[in-house]
C-alpha cells in the first residue's frame, strides 16, 4: 500500500494541521509526546480514506518511530458497510484469531479530532494493487502458493463463529445468508433510478437455486485481489473489513473467484492469481469443513450480482446523492458487465458445462 494518489473527493484529515491528531494519539497509546512527520493519502477506497502516517513516539509502550495507517469513515457510506468502530471490532477479532491483519492500535469515535471517526493500525508492507499483482512476471511461480496462503487465511476467518461477545452488533442472517443477501440487493435495486431487469433475473435464479446453508461463520465480505497485500509473492495482510458479517463461508470464496475480480487473467479463476483448486487446497487444509470446487459456481454468480448492485449504488451516489465524482459515475455504468457474466455462468450451468 505504498501508492499515493491525488483525489477530488473531500478529505477529512488536513495534512497542514496534524497537531490535534498527534495529541490524541499520544493519549491513546500512553506516550509522552507524538510527532507526526508524514501524512499521505493512500490509493484505493472509494468508500473511505486511508492515510499513511509516520509517527515519532516518545515514551510509553510504543516508544520509537512507527509507520501507521489511519482509516477514516467516508463522507457517505454504502448501506451494507460497517462504520469505523464496528469494522475495527471485526479487525480486532480477526487479529485475536491469528489472521494476517494489520495490528489494531487505537480508535477514535470523536468526530472533532480530524473531522470524522477513524482507526489507526500498523502499516504493513507490500502492494495491494491488483494489476501489479496479476501482471507480475513471476506470478506463475508464486500464484498457486499465494492462493493457498489466502485460502488458509480465509479458513482462519471462518473459524470465528457466533455467538461472539465482541461482535454482538453483527446481525445473524435470517433465515439464511442467501435470502439475507438477496433481500439486501433487492432493497438496493428498489432505491436505484435505473431498472436492471437482467439483475432481477439473476437474483430470481439465485433464489430458486439456493444451496443448503452451511453453519454461520464470520465472512470478510470483500476478500478479493486488490484487498490483500503481497510482498515477494507472499501474503502480508488482509485489508478492508467494512463488509464483514455473519454469513455462509462460501460467500468469501465465491467473491474471491468471481469473474469480475480476475483483472484480465480470466483463466486463473481464483482472483486472477491461481486456480480454484489452489485456493481450495489451502482452505480445506485449514478448515473444519471442506468445500468442493463445484459448490463455488453459485457463490460466484451471487458475487457478480453483489458487485453489480454495489456498482449501481455507487452510480446512485452521483445521480441522486449529489456527489459530483466521475469515478462514481463510471462505476455506475459497470453493472452490465457483472450481469453479463452472471447470465453466461447460468447458461453454462444449465447446459451442464463448467462456468468460466
Amino acid at each position, binding site marked *: 500500500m505504498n501508492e499515493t494518489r491525488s483525489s477530488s473527493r473531500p478529505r477529512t484529515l488536513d495534512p497542514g494541521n496534524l497537531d490535534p491528531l498527534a495529541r490524541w494519539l499520544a493519549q491513546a497509546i500512553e506516550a509522552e509526546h507524538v510527532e507526526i512527520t508524514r501524512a499521505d493519502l493512500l490509493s484505493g477506497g472509494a468508500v473511505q480514506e486511508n492515510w499513511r502516517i509516520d509517527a515519532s513516539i516518545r515514551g510509553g509502550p510504543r516508544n520509537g518511530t512507527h509507520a501507521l495507517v489511519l482509516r477514516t469513515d467516508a463522507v457517505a457510506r454504502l448501506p451494507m458497510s460497517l462504520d469505523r468502530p464496528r469494522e475495527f471490532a471485526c479487525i480486532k477479532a480477526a487479529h485475536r484469531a491469528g489472521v494476517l491483519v494489520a495490528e489494531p492500535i487505537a480508535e477514535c469515535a470523536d468526530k472533532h479530532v480530524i473531522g470524522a471517526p477513524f482507526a489507526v493500525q500498523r502499516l504493513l508492507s507490500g502492494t495491494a494493487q491488483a494489476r501489479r499483482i496479476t501482471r507480475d512476471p513471476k506470478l506463475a511461480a508464486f500464484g498457486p502458493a499465494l492462493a493457498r496462503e489466502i485460502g488458509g487465511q480465509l479458513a482462519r476467518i471462518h473459524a470465528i463463529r457466533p455467538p461472539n461477545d465482541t461482535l454482538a452488533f453483527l446481525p445473524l442472517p435470517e433465515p439464511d445468508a442467501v435470502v439475507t443477501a438477496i433481500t439486501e440487493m433487492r432493497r438496493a435495486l428498489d432505491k436505484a433510478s435505473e431498472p436492471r431487469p437482467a439483475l432481477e433475473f439473476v437474483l430470481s435464479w439465485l433464489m430458486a437455486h439456493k444451496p443448503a446453508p452451511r453453519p454461520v461463520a464470520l465472512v470478510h465480505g470483500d476478500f478479493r485481489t486488490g484487498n490483500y497485500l503481497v510482498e515477494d509473492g507472499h501474503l502480508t495482510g488482509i485489508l478492508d473489513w467494512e463488509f464483514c458479517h455473519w454469513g455462509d463461508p462460501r460467500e468469501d470464496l465465491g467473491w474471491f473467484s468471481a469473474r469480475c475480480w480476475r483483472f484480465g487473467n480470466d483463466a486463473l479463476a481464483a482472483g486472477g492469481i491461481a486456480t480454484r483448486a489452489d485456493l481450495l487446497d489451502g482452505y480445506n487444509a485449514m478448515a473444519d469443513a471442506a468445500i468442493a470446487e463445484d459448490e463455488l459456481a453459485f457463490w460466484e454468480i451471487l458475487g457478480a450480482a453483489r458487485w453489480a448492485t454495489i456498482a449501481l449504488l455507487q452510480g446512485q451516489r452521483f445521480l441522486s446523492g449529489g456527489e459530483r465524482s466521475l469515478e462514481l459515475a463510471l462505476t455506475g455504468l459497470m453493472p*452490465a458487465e457483472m450481469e*453479463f457474466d452472471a447470465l453466461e455462468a447460468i447458461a453454462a450451468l444449465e447446459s451442464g458445462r463448467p462456468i468460466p
Partner: protein
Amino acid sequence: MTARRLDADALLDLATEMLRAEVLPALSAEQRYAGAMIANALEIARRGLSEEVEAAEWALLDGLYEEGEGSTAQLARDIRAGTLPEGKARGLADSLRTLLIAELRVRNPRFLASRGVGG
C-alpha cells in the same frame, strides 16, 4: 478519422484524440488516473450517441408486452414477482443477454471483446 459533419460525434472524437495524444502524456503520475477517467467518459459519451441501446430495449419489450406497453421497470418488477407468462419467460435470458451486449457496446466494448463477443 475524417468527419463528414462537425457534429457532437466528430467533436467528442477530436477532443478525445487530442486528450490522449497531447494531454495525457504530459500529466503527472498522480493526475494520469483522472485524465484516463476523462478520456474514458468522453469515449462512452460518444458511443452513447448511437440509438442501439434504445432499439434493443424496444425489441426486448416488444417480444414480451403488447405493442407500446411495457417498460424496463415493468419488466424488472415482473421478473421479481415471477409474473411473466410461461411462454414469454422461456427465451428471457437470451433476450436480456442481447440487451446487455447493446449496453456494453456503449459502456465497455473492451469488456465484450474479453468475453469473446465481437463488435
